[in-house]
C-alpha cells in the first residue's frame, strides 16, 4: 500500500488527512499549494484506502478522511455511536472510462451490454457488433474503490462473473488491454492514453452515447462519474475549514483539473481545455 508521508515543518496544530489512494496525489498537490500560500500551516497527507481513512476519523487519528466512495451506512452508524457528526464535502469528480484494445472495431456500448459483459452473460464480441472473438474481461481488485464504484454504477450492484481477471493496478489493466485483442477493462479518466481505446457509453438504452472526457463528465452527458469526498468532524470546522475551502476555491479546483479530475464547479474553473483523447 502506498503510504506517502508529506511533512513540511512541525508546528502545532498539524492537519492530518488520510484515506483514499485515488485522492492521494490530488490532496498532496492541494496541500503543497495551500502551504505555499499559508506558510504557518502544517498538513500531513497519508493514503491507505477509503476504509482506513474513515476508521481513522472514527478513532480521531485524522482530521480529514479522503473517500473515493460515499460513507457506508455501517460507518455512519459507528460515527453516530461515538457522537461524531461528520461533514461531507465533494472536492472533485472522477470519471471512469471503459477501454478496449485499439484494434477492436466496437466503439460504443450501452450500460446493459456492459453489465452483461462484466457478468459473463455476453462472452463474444460479435454479440455487441464486433468481430467473432472471445471477450476477455479485466477488472480491478476487490479492495479498490474503483471496483466498488463500477459495480454500483454499471453492474447495478450485481456481482462480476467469477472468471473476471483482477489486476492489482490501473497500469496493469492498461498493459493487458493493450496486448490482448479481445480485452475490455475500466480505468480512471486521467489514465487514458493512446495504447487503449475508450468506448462511448450510453445509460439510456442506446438513445445517446457519450465519449469520456472532462467536459462531458462535467456537463453530465457522460454517465460513469463518481464524486470524491472529504469527511471531517463538524466540531473541528475551525481547524480544517481553511484547507477545505482552499480545495474548493478557484485555485484549488484548477489543480483538480490539472490532475485529470473533474472540478466541482465547472463554470468557474473550466478554461476551455479539452481533455478528451
Amino acid at each position, binding site marked *: 500500500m502506498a503510504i506517502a508521508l508529506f511533512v513540511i515543518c512541525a508546528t502545532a496544530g498539524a492537519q492530518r488527512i488520510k484515506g483514499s489512494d485515488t485522492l492521494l496525489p490530488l490532496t498532496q498537490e492541494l496541500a503543497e499549494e495551500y502551504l505555499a500560500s499559508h506558510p504557518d500551516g502544517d498538513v500531513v497527507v497519508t493514503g*491507505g484506502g477509503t476504509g482506513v481513512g474513515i476508521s481513522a476519523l472514527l478513532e480521531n487519528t485524522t482530521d480529514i478522511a479522503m473517500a473515493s466512495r460515499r460513507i457506508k*451506512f455501517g460507518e455512519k452508524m459507528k460515527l453516530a455511536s461515538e457522537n461524531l457528526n461528520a461533514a461531507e464535502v465533494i472536492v472533485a469528480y472522477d470519471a471512469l472510462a471503459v477501454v478496449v484494445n485499439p484494434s477492436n472495431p466496437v466503439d460504443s456500448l450501452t450500460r446493459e451490454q456492459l453489465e452483461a459483459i462484466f*457478468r459473463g452473460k455476453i462472452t463474444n464480441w460479435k454479440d455487441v457488433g464486433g468481430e467473432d472473438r472471445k471477450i476477455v474481461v479485466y477488472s480491478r481488485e*476487490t*479492495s479498490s474503490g474503483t471496483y466498488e464504484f463500477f459495480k454500483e454504477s454499471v453492474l447495478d*450492484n450485481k456481482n462480476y462473473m467469477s472468471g473476471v481477471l*483482477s489486476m492489482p493496478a490501473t497500469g496493469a489493466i492498461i498493459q493487458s488491454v493493450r*496486448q490482448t485483442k479481445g480485452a475490455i477493462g475500466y480505468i480512471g479518466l486521467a489514465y487514458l492514453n493512446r495504447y487503449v481505446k475508450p468506448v462511448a457509453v450510453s445509460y439510456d438504452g442506446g438513445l445517446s452515447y457519450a465519449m469520456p472526457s472532462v467536459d462531458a463528465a462535467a456537463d453530465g452527458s457522460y454517465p460513469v462519474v463518481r464524486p470524491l469526498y472529504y469527511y471531517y468532524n463538524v466540531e473541528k470546522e475551525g481547524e480544517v475549514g481553511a484547507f477545505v475551502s482552499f480545495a474548493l476555491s478557484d485555485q484549488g479546483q484548477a489543480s483538480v483539473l490539472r490532475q485529470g479530475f473533474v472540478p466541482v464547479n465547472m463554470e468557474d474553473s473550466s478554461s476551455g481545455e479539452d481533455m478528451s483523447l
Partner: protein
Amino acid sequence: MKKIADKTVRWVLTASGFVTSVVILLIIGFLFTEGAGLFGEKVIEEGYVLAVNKDNPVRVLDAAQIKAVFDEDMTNWKEAGGPDLPIETFRLEDMDEYFTEEQLGPQYENAGTLITSLVASSPGMVAFVPESMIPDDARLVFIEDCNISPEEVFAGTEWYPTATPAPLFGILPLLAGTLWVSFFAILIALPFGISIAVYMSEVASERVRGFLKPVIELLNGIPSVVYGFFGLIIIVPLLQQVFGLPVGESGLAGSIVLAIMALPTIVTVADDAMRNCPGALREGSLALGATRWQTVARVVIPSSMSGIASGVVLGIGRAIGETMAVLMVTGNAAVVPHSILEPLRTIPATIAAELGEAPAGGAHYQSLFLLGVILFFITFFINLCVEYISSRNRAKNS
C-alpha cells in the same frame, strides 16, 4: 572472569532462543484464532437483515442462494422451495425508484416505515436493509441468519468476499490455483535446476563456475515485482502468440516466472551439496572404471540426494509463497482451473491484494487469515516430506 562471561553468553543465548520461540508460537496462535473466527461470523452483512413478506414461507437461504437472488440469476421463489412467485429485490440504493424525497422526509426519517409497508404489500419482495431502520412493530419476517459453515468455505467454488448482502468465501479455486501453479513451476524448474547444478559442479571449469555462480545467485536478489513486470510484458504476450490463447495471463505464465525465481535456490543448494560429496567416493568410482557420467549419475547425485531435495523444497517454498510476481501474471480469476493455460488465482496473491482494505475484524479479514493458515499447513506438509526423504537417505547411506 571467564566463567562469568561464559555464563552470560549462555544465558543470553537461552533467553533469546526462548523469546523467539514464544513469539513464533504466538504469531501462529494469532493466525489460527483470527482464521477460525470466520466460522463465528454471520452470513448476512453485520447490522443488516433480509426482510420478506410475512406470507412468504421461505425462511432459510444460504449465501449462494442470496447472491443468486440479488444478481437476478434466481427469479422465482419456487427455486428456493417457496411458492410460485417472482422474486423482487430491494436495496437501499433503490429507494428513490419507489419513493420521492418528500415522502422520505428531510432526514429520511420515514424510510423505515415506507420500506416496511412496501415489503408488507408486495408478496414476492426481499429487502436488504439495516436492522435499525425497521420499526419494532413491523409485521415482517426475516430470513434466518446462520453462521458461515466450514462446508461453504472448504467446498465452495465461488470467491466473492465483498459481495452484498452475503459474501461467499469458497476457497477451492484459490487452493487449486496455488497447487496447480506451484506444481508446474517445479516441473519446469527441476530439470533445469539439476542440470545447471551438475554442469557447474562436475563439468564446468573453475573459471566458468566462478563467473556463473555469482550470476545465478544475483537472480535471487532481483525483487519479485520486477519478475512480475518482466512476466507481464514479455512472457504473457509470448504465450498468447505461441499457444494462440485469447488471454495470455495464465497459470503457465505464473509457473514460468516462478520457475525462474526458484532456479537460483535450487541451483545453489544442489551445487553445494554435490561439491560436498566426499572426494574418496568420486575417486573410488572413477578408479573402478566408471565413466564420468556414470560417476555423476550413480555416485555423486545419490550421495548428495538430501542436499538436492532440500534445495528443491526451498524452491517449492519460494514458489508457493510468492506473491507479487504471481499477482501480476496469472490474471487472478477465481475459478477452478481446468488447464494450466487458463487464468487462475493463488492464495498469497489473494491475501496481498485484499488485506489492504478488508475491514479489520470482519469476515473478509478473517477469511484472509484462514487462507494464511492453509498456506501454513501446505508448507508444513512439504517440510515434513523433506525431513522424511532426507532421514531415509541418511539411514541408507550410513
